[in-house]
């Protein structure tokens, strides 16, 4: 199918383009930018007047809940949510049931995703068997089956010897290890950030040191083993600073921040709103501000949705009993735009955090619209206002702190491999 996307404002951060240029697609690839290639006749023309055309978003963290947790969400519902949000490529966590620690499970997941034919799915494999923190998984086999990195999700990996060896082993093959820095002991029982707000609310708390101690430990092991590590969901000012310094030192580390932590802080818990029960917890105002700055100055590489659909029953309980997590795929774009507007960041720089930069972390030739690239494209309306409510969200997870709030920015068309998968 030959498609022309015309009259749009093309923003391709990787190629430094921000101009009114048409995009020409054929056989699932970009075949022309600005000028149609010779002999090109479009089967379909998408008029993107007054809209932005950019690479499809790449979300480094989206829980699809399959296999095993289908009562929370299914591949069908979550992939619909993804393309509605303009996400053409996403990484899913290994904390399913069973965990993604066997090549067969990974293959099945990729097969299912391919059949649904929406976003590309890049599975993250479990670092240890069953995420039990003891035995290494067959990382080479899992990579052959399609895993792009290995992670321990939110499960504790307290044995530093195991962690050290896992990093060393991954490093042997050049595999990336994605770790959410949280010391299991210091965060035991905690559900909120250890600060003035948790003190008033009487909530068991997770101190900042739970993150910084974990970051310090991992950085030391990176220095020793040379492993590539991606820090997932940085949440504190101190944490960002440590990673900023480590990067200056030249360590092979990257990190991301979730949309929620970019906009919210512990005060937003309000009167015990369990939609704000998140991991890592929403920290203080100064932490939030440091995260916003960090994403701006590049200390933080990538913005992700940390999409975690949770069923209503698991949220309509007292705060401390609620399951942590928020739905996010459909809010990735508007919240990126909101951050950019508030921080006075250019649109190309803002979009880079959800297109070219995540692609770079994945070391994939994605997130850009060069001639020859896969035609993963998003067309969106910058100023379209809409209200976040249960009906409009396609994800099965209706759990978001932004329920009832107005957003600006909505996807009008999503193309994956040259096919329109959402409009």
């Amino acid at each position, binding site marked *: 199918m030959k498609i022309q996307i015309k009259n749009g404002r093309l923003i391709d951060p990787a190629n430094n383009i921000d101009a009114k240029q048409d995009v020409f697609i054929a056989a699932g690839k970009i075949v022309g930018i600005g000028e149609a290639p010779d002999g090109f006749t479009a089967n379909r023309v998408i008029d993107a007047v007054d809209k932005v055309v950019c690479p499809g978003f790449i979300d480094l963290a989206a829980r699809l809940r399959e296999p095993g947790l289908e009562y929370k969400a299914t591949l069908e519902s979550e992939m619909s949510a993804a393309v509605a949000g303009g996400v053409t490529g996403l990484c899913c966590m290994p904390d399913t049931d069973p965990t993604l620690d066997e090549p067969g499970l990974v293959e099945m997941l990729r097969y299912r995703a391919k059949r649904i034919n929406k976003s590309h799915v890049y599975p993250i494999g479990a670092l240890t068997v069953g995420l039990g923190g003891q035995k290494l998984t067959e990382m080479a086999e899992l990579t052959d089956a399609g895993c792009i990195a290995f992670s321990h999700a939110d499960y504790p990996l307290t044995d530093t010897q195991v962690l050290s060896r896992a990093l060393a082993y991954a490093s042997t093959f050049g595999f990336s290890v994605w770790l959410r820095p949280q010391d299991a002991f210091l965060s035991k029982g905690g559900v909120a950030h250890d600060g*003035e707000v948790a*003190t008033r609310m*009487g*909530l068991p708390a997770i101190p900042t040191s739970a993150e910084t101690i974990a970051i310090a430990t991992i950085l030391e092991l990176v220095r020793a083993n040379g492993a590539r590590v991606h820090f997932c969901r940085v949440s504190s000012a101190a944490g960002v600073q440590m990673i900023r310094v480590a990067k200056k030192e030249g360590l092979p580390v990257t990190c991301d921040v979730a949309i929620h932590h970019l906009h919210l802080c512990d005060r937003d818990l309000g009167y015990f*709103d369990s939609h704000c029960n998140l991991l890592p917890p929403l920290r203080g105002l100064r932490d939030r501000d440091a995260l916003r700055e960090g994403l701006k100055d590049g200390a933080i590489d990538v913005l992700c949705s940390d999409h975690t659909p949770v069923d209503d029953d698991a949220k309509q309980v*007292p705060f*401390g009993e609620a399951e942590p997590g928020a739905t996010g795929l459909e809010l990735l774009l508007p919240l990126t735009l909101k951050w950019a507007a508030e921080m006075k960041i250019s649109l190309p720089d803002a979009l880079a955090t959800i297109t070219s930069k995540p692609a770079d972390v994945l070391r994939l030739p994605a997130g850009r619209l060069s001639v020859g690239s896969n035609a993963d494209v998003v067309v969106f309306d910058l100023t379209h206002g809409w209200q976040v409510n249960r009906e409009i969200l396609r994800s099965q997870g209706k759990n978001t702190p932004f329920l009832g709030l107005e957003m600006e920015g909505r996807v009008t068309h999503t193309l994956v491999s040259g096919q329109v998968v959402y409009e």
Partner: protein
Amino acid sequence: MIHNPQLNKNGELTHLLTIEGLPAEIIRNVLDTAESFVSVAEREVKKVPLLRGKSVFNLFFEPSTRTRTTFEIAAKRLSADVLNLNIGASSTSKGETLLDTVDNLSAMHADMFVVRHSQSGAPFLIARHVKPGIHVVNAGDGRHAHPTQGLLDMYTIRHYKRDFSQLTVAIIGDVLHSRVARSQIHALTTLGVPEVRVVGPKTLLPTGVENMGVHVHHDMTQGLKGVDVVIMLRLQNERMNGALLPTAQEYFKCYGLTQEKLALAKPDAIVMHPGPMNRGVEIDSAVADGTQSVILPQVTFGIAVRMAVMSILAGN
């Protein structure tokens, strides 16, 4: 949620969930109303007909005999019908959610829920969920709040000391885990007490507690100097297990209230304790039973204060 969930459209109290954010007038109104109920308790017929025909359901997800009993007495003295439900582990293990339990009981025409729960914030969830006209009283949620205890403690202080604006009050013990302490701090600061101190080891004082408007002391002898009101908090045995404290003996040595330490406070200082007391752990028997102790009157006042709370809520 932007508006204060405790107040209705007219700014009247419709639930009592926490003292935090309550205007001082509402607090004073409760104390004044409670005074009338104290005199009711002193006559032969200790009942008034205010809540006749109304049903008060005591929903205790966390076991408690003392608090539940005082709420029961208070409700009955208002001529209400009282139903006691000790939910505990058995019901949740049957899979019924908190909100399902509340819905089922609302269908049985409950007018008021008195709720105690081990999770901070549970009463807010319930208050958001019940139909208008049903009132929720927080009888203690996790570490967060115990507003009726805070109110009865203020009543007690007002009874003995009259003027809040001249007082120095010290709250001593495990503030970290104490919903009573948090409620007391909110009440004292709202009523204009100029100096509120918290005294305890670092492991038992929560992060940033000074932002609640208190002075932090780790040395009890400093913390007690010149104090008008000494409030001792209960120390639970579990604290010795979580590496927060070594032993009860060492705690008593450093933070227990003895006659000797009490002498550092003003000579007419009163000693309070929300109960139940651990004699020999946070407080010496001689002090607990001594002339400066007002621990027993606290209990009496507690019934009157709860009657005041329930009658104010039920009338709004």
